[in-house]
């Protein structure tokens, strides 16, 4: 399928999306042939041959049984399509364990890439082939999009929110990334590349650059930055890594389910951590007071990403 209308699917996910596409195409094709066939057949067969027949056409005004079936059958068909569409989608939304995280921030008109080890890049994302990679997406100015046609997935990049997307490139290659949400004059030139390297080459690439040094001496790992910010921004005055203080503790937080004051629970993912730093009053953990100030203007996106990455590591 992919070979005809698109090009080779670059991942198992993409192949599954193509299967859904193909299924809808076959079902749609059946109804296309049925309806257009009857439309054209009737139009030709029952064209006016003699004017006096105008007054003898049968008085057919409906048929309840037929109507029942052509309400029932489309209903069943659409539920089936919905179901398969959902099944594959659910799989697209749940990243496998052990995915490599890459932070990507969009601004007019570029993608700023930051690896967890502190390296940065513009418009080029290097990942190892054959392993899942998870993108943690944000935007600085306006809405942007993150579309990987070879992987059949996209996600909006929204200022003030964190969104995520994962892919697993099955084979090495250079895959285009397009911005799909209109973002101004440079929109159609806002493209990037996902470069999937064979594992050996990736290890070489990874070893190539400087990283992990203290501030001012080469790039700083995101988690290290987070640890530094956590001390300097005063987080630990109210929070502890382990154990209840004024605020809730960090250890084991990421990936857990947090019970809020109204009794509902929420998954502690990147978006939850980000929101709790920039808009602490939005979700109050059960048993705590709403007294934390916002760090929206005092911390940069990089700082917040660093904190998120640091907290993620506190298992």
């Amino acid at each position: 399928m992919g070979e005809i209308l698109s090009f080779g699917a670059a991942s198992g996910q993409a192949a599954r999306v193509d299967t859904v596409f193909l299924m809808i195409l076959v079902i749609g094709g059946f109804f296309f042939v049925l309806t257009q066939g009857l439309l054209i057949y009737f139009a030709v067969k029952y064209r006016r041959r003699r004017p006096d027949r105008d007054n003898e056409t049968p008085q057919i005004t409906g048929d309840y049984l037929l109507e029942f079936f052509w309400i029932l059958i489309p209903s069943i068909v659409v539920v089936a399509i919905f179901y398969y569409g959902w099944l594959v989608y659910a799989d697209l939304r749940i990243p496998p364990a052990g995915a490599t995280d890459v932070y990507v921030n969009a601004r007019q008109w570029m993608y700023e890439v930051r690896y967890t080890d502190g390296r940065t890049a513009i418009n080029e994302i290097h990942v190892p082939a054959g392993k899942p990679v998870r993108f943690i997406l944000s935007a600085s100015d306006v809405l942007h999009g993150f579309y990987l046609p070879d992987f059949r997935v996209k996600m909006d990049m929204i200022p003030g929110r964190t969104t995520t997307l994962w892919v697993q490139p099955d084979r090495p290659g250079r895959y285009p990334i397009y911005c799909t949400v209109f973002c101004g004059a440079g929109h159609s030139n806002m493209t990037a590349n996902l470069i999937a390297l064979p594992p050996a080459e990736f290890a070489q690439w990874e070893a190539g650059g400087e990283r992990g040094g203290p501030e001012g001496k080469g790039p700083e790992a995101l988690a290290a930055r987070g640890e530094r910010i956590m001390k300097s921004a005063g987080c630990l005055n109210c929070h502890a890594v382990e154990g209840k203080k004024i605020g809730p503790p960090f250890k084991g937080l990421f990936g857990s389910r947090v019970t809020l004051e109204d009794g509902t629970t929420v998954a502690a993912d990147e978006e939850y951590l980000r929101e709790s730093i920039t808009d602490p009053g939005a979700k109050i953990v059960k048993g705590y007071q709403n007294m934390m100030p916002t760090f929206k203007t005092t911390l940069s996106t990089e700082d917040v990403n660093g904190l998120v990455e640091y907290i993620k590591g506190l298992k």
Partner: protein
Amino acid sequence: MTGNPETGRGYLAERGWRSWAYTLDHKRIGVMYLLTTIAFFLVGGVFALLLRLELLSPQAKYFSDHTYNVFFTLHGAMMIFLFIIPAIPSGLGNFFIPMHIGARDVAFPRLNLASYWVFVAGFLVVLASLVSPMDTGWTFYTPYSAKTGAAVATLSFGIFLIGMSSILTGLNFIVTIHKLRAPGMSWHRLPLFIWGMYSTSIIQVVATPVVGVTFLLLALERLVGVAFFDPAKGGDPVLFQHFFWFYSHPVVYVMILPAMGIVSEVIPVFSRKPIFGYAAIAYSSLAIAFIGFLVWGHHMFTSAMSPLANAIFSFLTFFVAVPTAVKVFNWIATLYKGSITFESPMLYALTFIFLFIIGGLTGPFLAALSTNVQLHDTYFVVAHFHYTMMGGTVMGFFAGLHYWFPKMTGKMLNEKVARIAWALVFIGFNVTFFTMFIVGTRGMPRRYAEYVPKFHAENVVSTVGSAILALGILVMMWNFVQGLRKGARAPGNPWYALSLEWQSASPPETENFHEVPTVTAWPYGYGTPKGPPA
């Protein structure tokens, strides 16, 4: 036939601009709407041609990227707000709702005139915004629309006024259909065009205030700095999308339902057979209007809604397909054992069905979550909505124009020229837009002034198609002008139709009927010896 040959130019008899500007006659107001909206259709079409011209080359060639962005914004905004929303309801609807139900006018003639002039005020404000033309796309997504240098507040105020006009018209139609039906015109004798218009009017009255408020909030954000949507100040850009689509999704049914109504009128007339499944067609319009309110989230599957919310919106979206499919099956069944002729109104009605089937069957690709995530914001979506909105609504509009031209003007159109125009439109449309399904599936995003060379071939084909389509529309317009100037005198009922509007003179007199008709049967009793002669 109660048509009176002595009335001559009928409602058109009075002359001078005052007789138009101050008229309370629903027919004249309808004609003014038609001329205005067709003018904007042509202007919006010119923008479309400029877009296609630029896309002949992968790199910017004729215009800058910014100019291209302005063009697609104006193409979308004009086609949606100034043409396709008002054209059938306010144009053909104004003219034919009272005539279809045997009334002398709409319920509130002054309000009707007011809604036209509010519409004019709206488009004047829209034109004023051209000093610093919009470059946001017709969706006005924040935060870009809150930051760009263009006249967003002006344009959104213009659309606010147009929306107000739309609400007034919808309100007027609802009351008219409830209160002014001729004696004997029970709900189940209502022509299906009226059912379509009734469903549309409900959506207009219920949904339009939401977009009005949304644009006010956007204007407040730009002018006063109140941050509803700007995340830097605590707002939420996704909230804007919810507001926007809460209106802009139901509004696609404002566009399509009246066109479906026209098709439901034309098919039985030219098949000389009763409509198949009257009740199913009538109630499916209401069903579409209702379900249409519950599916706006399908525009936002990649906008950070929760997967559960996405699943619910996807599920509900699929159910729009059911009442829509019912209509298509019923129209096709109406053809069965008919005595079909292919005058231009019928050609456009059959084209509507043909193209709308393609538009409809490509819907599930976008309603299913996994394929939506692939195809969202690509040319596949552009192709899908042009198949439904242009292949559907606009073809229905053309069917209506050709069908009712003799009634509105008292002149017949040149049928041969009309068929040449139809053939060009049919071929041009498919060449232009079917190609977009392919290039969209291959991954070309929409709203791209420049694109990678691998999409070049499809874009060239599509541009060639758009030229054929434009030629067809030019021939059609020329035919309308020629028909007005020197068309043969139209009889009262040239198509031998049974609905009430044909029981008046062509063109109708000022108050439509000599005496209010009494209705004794539904309007689809074709094919019986007692029916009208062929």
